[in-house]
């Protein structure tokens, strides 16, 4: 039941082959990010140039993805990131992952580089059913048009993951978009640039057979119970999507404002999901595979070149990116910028940070108008649309900005570095660690750089996810340091398991527990697993990725927040005056993890997690390890 298979596609020679994944490997590495990491390490070395043919790109649905389990629909994309230089991953929901699962595959591994633009058509799990087809006519199309064209060519039952012009041009924060205009994106860390460097425009997957769990009746019973809880706990989420949280995040000091230097933003009331609904912008809802929440929204655009057209509605992160971060309270321009970024194939979190950074550079005279091509203004929607195009096509100022805020700030000098907001090169997502300080230790230690989804510790601090589900006894006070390291440690382990299984993290809203999820694995595969086993597997994945980072030179010196978040408090609002005491939390966190003072896993930790074999494999000198 647990044996699996992957297809290896050598883009350089156009050869495809099959890799059998034995039961032992699959039960240990499961799927998604974990299996993807294992496969990447089998085929690539950590020192590769991220945009070279030697950087393998792995698509891996989670172990549970595509089975009749609520919100089990995510696929991980794993490669070395051009943005951070770290082995990284990005996950995407929608329908692509379940379709890939139905083809019978646990992973598609792309090696080498195609000599000309191509796309990959997957019609089954045999190498002869995976075809490389020419994509000269698709090159240059946006992600929506690419999906439409491929559906017209191969039928409506094909699901597509594609890059846009940003990926083709190897913008370091280009994403891979699934679902066309019903957009879901493997957004973070520039996986779209890796795909573009390989000359791969899209991966298209045709229908196959729906997989059957080992005990369908028992699983169906579990899902009935879960569905009721989800419906009860996510009503506002269903109505407004993540966008409904914008105004609440502003109220709690969590919403970043004006490149992270503001404290309050009255305009949040205009760009929150409820306001968009009241204005009549929202005209429909959509959902990912197997999910009753339907957090996706359709909106009618009223600004930009596509005014009057229907498009994907902006999510919370995107509203923060193109709204409060840029002091833009015009919902029409937020929606237009979201549509444009999705079509171009840009990660909206990184793009919003980069644009706000550029506006501040212009305001301070660090970059001049003749370099920018036009004045860059706070609160100006046209500035945002202009910069998105320049970045995606690497034109003018876009050439500098297309490598992310870290690289841009390094080029612009020390003053710009003071307000370049990133961790390990990944721009910080829009939950402020000065409002929920557990996010400080989470951002500092995440595997891929600043990532909210690796820890979602603000869910625990705000009460959205009950701390008792993870056995956290002490009460958590948002502005303090007490207990924060434990929250980060436990949530990171738990959510690493989510990424292996292919589960959407919004399931947390229904208070799912590790024991409950382990039950789904047991029922689906007959694999004996407890909640503790699940958390242990998450801990092992987290430490494997930490070892990769250590091999690339990451230590405590890199587990740091940017100066603006560590030393400049928000001036007003509920989080005014709060700064996270990162050093104290980091000491506690390293102890809980079994890492030394420099943040390197100790030998006893590696033994406990059965990871010692990777020390030599990753080229780590044993001299850096302590007992």
């Amino acid at each position, binding site marked *: 039941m647990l044996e699996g298979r992957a297809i290896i596609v050598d883009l350089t020679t156009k050869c495809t082959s099959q890799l059998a994944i034995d039961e032992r490997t699959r039960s240990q590495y499961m799927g998604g990010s974990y299996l993807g990491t294992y496969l990447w390490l089998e085929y690539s070395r950590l020192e590769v140039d991220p945009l070279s043919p030697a950087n393998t790109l792995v698509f891996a649905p989670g172990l549970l993805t595509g089975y009749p389990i609520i919100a089990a629909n995510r696929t991980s994309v794993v490669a070395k990131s051009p943005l951070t230089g770290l082995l990284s991953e990005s996950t995407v929901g929608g329908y692509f992952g379940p379709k890939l699962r139905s083809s019978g595959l646990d992973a598609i591994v792309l090696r080498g580089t195609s000599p000309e633009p191509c796309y990959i058509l997957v019609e089954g799990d045999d190498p002869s059913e995976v075809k490389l087809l020419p994509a000269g006519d698709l090159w240059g199309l946006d992600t929506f048009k690419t999906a439409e064209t491929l559906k017209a060519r191969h039928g409506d039952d094909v699901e597509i993951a594609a890059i846009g012009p940003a990926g083709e041009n190897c913008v370091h924060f280009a994403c891979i978009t699934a679902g066309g205009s019903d957009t879901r994106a493997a957004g973070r860390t520039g996986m779209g640039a890796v795909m573009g460097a390989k000359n791969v425009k899209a991966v298209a997957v045709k229908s196959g057979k729906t997989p059957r769990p080992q005990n369908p009746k028992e699983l169906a019973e579990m899902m009935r119970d879960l569905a009721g809880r989800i419906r009860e706990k996510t009503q506002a989420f269903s109505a407004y999507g993540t966008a409904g949280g914008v105004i609440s995040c*502003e109220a709690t000091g969590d919403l970043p404002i004006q490149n992270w230097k503001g404290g309050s933003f009255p305009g949040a009331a205009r760009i929150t999901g409820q306001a968009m609904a*009241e204005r009549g912008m929202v005209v429909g809802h959509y959902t990912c595979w197997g999910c009753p929440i339907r957090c996706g929204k359709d909106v009618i655009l009223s600004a930009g070149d596509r005014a009057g057209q229907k498009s994907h509605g902006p999510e919370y992160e995107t509203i923060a990116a193109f709204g409060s971060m840029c002091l833009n309270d015009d919902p029409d321009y937020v929606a237009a910028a979201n549509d444009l970024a999705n079509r171009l194939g840009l990660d909206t979190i990184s793009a919003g940070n980069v644009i706000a950074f550029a506006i501040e550079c212009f305001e301070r005279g660090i970059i001049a108008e003749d370099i920018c091509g036009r004045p860059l203004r706070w609160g100006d929607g046209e500035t945002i649309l202009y910069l998105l195009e320049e970045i995606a096509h690497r034109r003018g100022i876009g050439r500098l900005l297309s490598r992310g805020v870290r690289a841009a700030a390094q080029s612009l000098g020390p003053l710009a570095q003071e307000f370049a907001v990133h961790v390990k090169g990944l721009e910080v997502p829009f939950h402020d660690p000065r409002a929920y300080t557990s996010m400080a230790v989470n951002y500092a230690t995440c595997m891929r750089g600043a990532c909210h989804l690796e820890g979602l510790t603000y869910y625990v601090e*705000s009460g959205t996810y009950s701390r008792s589900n993870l056995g956290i006894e002490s009460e958590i006070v948002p502005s303090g340091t007490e207990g924060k390291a434990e929250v980060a440690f436990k949530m990171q382990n738990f959510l690493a398991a989510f990424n292996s299984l292919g589960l959407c993290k919004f399931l947390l809203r229904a208070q799912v527990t590790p024991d409950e999820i382990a039950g789904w694995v047991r029922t689906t595969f007959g694999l004996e697993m407890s909640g503790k086993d699940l958390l242990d597997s998450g801990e092992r994945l987290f430490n494997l990725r930490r070892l990769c980072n250590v091999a690339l030179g990451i230590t405590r010196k890199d587990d740091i927040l940017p100066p603006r978040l560590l030393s400049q408090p928000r001036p007003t609002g509920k989080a005014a005056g709060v700064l996270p005491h990162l050093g104290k939390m980091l000491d506690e966190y390293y102890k809980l993890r079994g890492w030394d003072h420099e943040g390197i896993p100790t030998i006893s930790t590696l033994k406990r997690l059965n990871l010692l074999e990777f020390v030599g494999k990753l080229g780590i000198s044993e001299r850096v390890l302590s007992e």
Partner: protein
Amino acid sequence: MATLEVTGHLIFYLPKAARDGTVARAVVPPGTALGHLPGILGIPQEEIQAYIVNGRSVKDLSTILGQDDHVVILPVITGG
């Protein structure tokens, strides 16, 4: 009357006339219990993170509001 300041997305449960930017305002008679506010305002209890009464967080929902009390109602945050 005790004064109420509702914040975050909770303002959308109140009539437009009660909203003022990112907050909405209301009053309740003295003697009202804190735990009765969700019902009075039409706000689901599970979407409320905290009640701040005269600047201090109050968890006891049986607390009775006095004539000049000021209550800030904070939402559970959401977002992606």
